């Protein structure tokens, strides 16, 4: 009797220890670092963070990126998921190809796009062959903020849409076919079926995908770093710069706390906004 009562605790034990040691402990340490200065409790690190030249810019850039990339990724992933669902042949192969970018690390993805978009990259080579430009064109410099931003968005779309896709496909497979068939009998066209049946039933998956993707998007760093260097400051990039370049881990920790607070707030918004009543699900 007592063994079976203990068993659940034993089973979650290792995971709990793991989380405590590698997540909670560093989190507590980071909070302590952020709120101390010269050994005393203080908000000096946050004051320094807010007063920094790049602070406003990195907030603006990070939000701009998240607000552009996430809706695009959601639409793209939905379209791709519906397409894959409809495929009769070669479905696995298509899915496999679509999720290849998941295997590439952030930095590698950034470097791939760098090799495409830099002065002497593939993109300029193609433009040159087509006779559209007659020399290297700069797309990623501080003088071309728009094309730099577009470049970062493209790289992020390529790199991270697949994770949304995988979650949505898993969700789609849980929706019983009978609903769509019944709707079809009553004369609903494809768009109506998608809007009235698929989307509402997919809401829990969309919620998970959005939470996961948004939290990761607020942590965007390596892709931006590879493509823009210091030309497009983002929050985590600033944390990195304060930790390594400026060797001030207090301010770096303050940035980390800020990123965490923003991510938590975004998660709460999603949980409230996309709440589903259990009785509306099959």
């Amino acid at each position, binding site marked *: 009797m007592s063994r079976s009562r203990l068993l659940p605790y034993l089973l979650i034990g290792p995971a709990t220890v793991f989380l405590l040691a590698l997540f909670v402990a560093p989190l507590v340490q980071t909070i302590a670092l952020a709120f101390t200065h010269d050994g005393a409790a203080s908000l000096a690190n946050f004051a320094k963070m807010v007063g920094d*030249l790049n602070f406003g810019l990195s907030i603006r850039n990070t939000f701009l990126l998240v607000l552009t990339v996430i809706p695009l990724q959601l639409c793209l992933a939905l379209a791709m998921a519906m397409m894959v669902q409809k495929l009769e042949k070669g479905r696995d192969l298509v899915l496999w190809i679509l999720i290849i970018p998941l295997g590439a690390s952030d930095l590698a993805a950034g470097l791939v796009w760098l090799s495409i978009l830099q002065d002497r990259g593939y993109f300029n080579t193609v433009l040159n062959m087509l006779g559209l430009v007659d020399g290297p064109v700069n797309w990623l410099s501080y*003088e071309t903020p728009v094309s730099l931003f577009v470049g970062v968005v493209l790289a992020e779309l390529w790199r991270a849409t697949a994770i949304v896709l995988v979650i949505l496909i898993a969700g789609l497979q849980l929706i019983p076919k009978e609903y769509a068939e019944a709707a079809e009998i009553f004369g609903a066209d494809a768009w109506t079926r998608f809007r009235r049946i698929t989307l509402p039933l997919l809401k829990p998956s969309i919620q998970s995908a959005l939470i996961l993707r948004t939290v990761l998007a607020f942590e965007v760093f390596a892709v931006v770093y590879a493509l823009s*260097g210091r030309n497009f400051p983002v929050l985590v990039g600033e944390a990195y710069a304060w930790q390594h370049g*400026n060797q001030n881990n207090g301010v770096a920790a303050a940035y980390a706390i800020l990123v965490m607070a923003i991510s938590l707030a975004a998660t709460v918004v999603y949980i409230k906004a996309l709440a589903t009543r259990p009785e509306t699900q099959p």
Partner: protein
Amino acid sequence: MTGLKRLLAAAAVSGAALTGAMAQETIFLSTQLRPVEEATKVRQIILKGAPGPVTFVVEEPSPFQTRMDAETQAGKRTISMVGALHGELAPLVASKGLEPVDGLVAKATALGVPDAMMALGKLGTNSQMYIPWMQATYIMAARKEALQYLPAGADVNSLTYAQLKDWAKAIQDKTGKRALGFPAGPKGLLARFFQGYLYPSYTGGVVATFKSAEAEAMWGAFKDLWAHVNPNSASYDFMQEPLMAGEVMIAFDHVARLKDALVAAPNDYVTFPAPSAGKGRGFMPVVAGLGVAPNAPNKAGAMATIEHLLKPETQIAMARELGFFPVVKADLPADLPGGIKLLVEGVAKTQGAKDALVSLLPVGLGAKGGEFNKVYVDTFQAIVLRGAPIRATLDAQAATLQTIMNETKAPCWAPDKPGDGACKVN
């Protein structure tokens, strides 16, 4: 040393498990000479005559710091000696990662290490915290085909900043290329350009004159110059790469970061000092030092290795093989390889310039060195790249600079006038 032994030593460094068994080994952790070819030369040539087995391990500056701190906090030392730049060794004083090496002072001085350099090695304490190891500086290099565009009457060996601008402008007018480059990338050493070259040349100071009228005029002039600078400069870390790729024709950088280009094609380049302005031709000697870790597993080996590295013949070998220059009295041989010779010439012309104005590395900033650099880079980013008003930016950044000075209580260093107490931004 056999391959197996080296493997074991490496395991000892990373795992800290085999240290007891490897007591005879001196583990030498360095932030310098990291590229594989350079590290190999250190192991096979420079350390060959060392008195005992030395394992040369390299680490980037940030992990270097982390590792030293981790070993200090854990109370378990695997590293006996360290080699790093002055600015990388400075934070180790506060974090107790260095032990005084006063026992080597007499020997180093007798070999001819200059007193000013020995004083840097005290890192603001009363003891010798590191022994100078090797030195370098920053120079300019240009591809020879750029010389045809030099403005009339300009001598490449005694350029002014105004002439450098005219030169870059002439190249842009004739070829359509912005051919001047600076290492303004995230890992580039642009802060040193402002601290050791631009500010001293225009204002005769670095900290005290930070927001002076001369500084205001200087930033205006530099912004004009930047119109002819390759915009990719914001991502250049090492200027040897854009030079070799032909993206830029004229570049400023640390000698070690120009070396590959010069060594690959010594006949294609000229080297010359950085430009001058109203107050002279600023230049900054860079010093790397050798220190011993507290509770070093092999302190005697570390001390003996430092002595070996200071020998004039070792120092000459360092120059010949690696392009770093002796800190002791030693005459460089005439038969240096072409690229190294170009470096030596560039350095000699810089040091020997009639209007040379020496600017020391920041002294006494301890762990605030990174934030000190940030002031200069932020000022540059705001004024030059983002078009912020010069006066307002200087005033705002001067406040940050003064806070750093007050917190560290660092007195002014050359070319600012030395004085008591924290250096003041006037």
